[in-house]
């Protein structure tokens, strides 16, 4: 028997690790990886809640979340390529001017 609180605690720990990754790194790719980790923590909460209340809705939302993540990653990586072509660097601190 898996305790519901333990599943939530694992998801919370995963979310905190993703948040740390976003705050710690200055490279845009690593910031994106941190966002992915946080989204995975959210989907673990959804799946655990779906099993706890024996409802289908949580799993449906996780599948929609995956599709939304795919869209987000496509745009974000296109933006990474754009920024690389613009300045030949991926350090987020370099992009500090509105009109470059």
């Amino acid at each position, binding site marked *: 028997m898996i305790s519901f609180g333990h599943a939530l605690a694992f998801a*919370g720990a995963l979310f905190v690790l993703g948040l*740390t990754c976003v705050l710690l790194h*200055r490279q845009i790719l690593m910031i994106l990886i941190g966002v992915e980790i946080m989204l*995975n923590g959210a989907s673990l909460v959804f799946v655990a809640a779906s099993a706890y209340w024996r409802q289908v809705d949580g799993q449906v939302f996780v599948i929609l979340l995956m599709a939304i993540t795919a869209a987000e990653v496509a*745009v974000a990586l296109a933006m990474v390529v754009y920024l690389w072509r613009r300045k030949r660097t991926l350090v987020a601190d370099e992009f500090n001017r509105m009109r470059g």
Partner: protein
Amino acid sequence: MATVLFYILGFTMLAATLLCITRRNPVHAVIYLVAGLFALALMFYLLGAPLVAAWQVIVYAGAIMVLFLFIIMMLGLAPQDVPEGPGWQRWGPLALLSSSIMICTLLLIFQDPMAGQQIDDFYLAPQVLGEALFSRYALAVEIVSFQLLFATIGAYMLGRPLPKDEDQ
């Protein structure tokens, strides 16, 4: 048995993610993240979500992470291009904050105030999930498909060649 597996997988996932976020080379980070995602997919399976587990492997580890690797290798981000990490002054407070949250989380796992609320054995057949997805949530599926279309157009717009005066 399933319970023991769940905890092994959970700590494996946390360890792989911790290794991922501390790497400076993005290729290594992505490889560790794929390991963590596999562990998470197995946790989904143990929580009675076989279809979500399969899609986690196929979509996340198979497509999204490979897209990351593809971009890293296309841009040729050699490890020497990666900037030096911030000094103690910058990430000291951050490490303190996140380690205190992590310690609280681990204490929650060992104390377990919700011990009475167990997740019973649950298995959601992919057929049931598909029926719900395409009947009750059909509108959401349509909206998400529109979003994917917009993302494709957005990625195309961003990928156009730069005008000459902006090219540095």
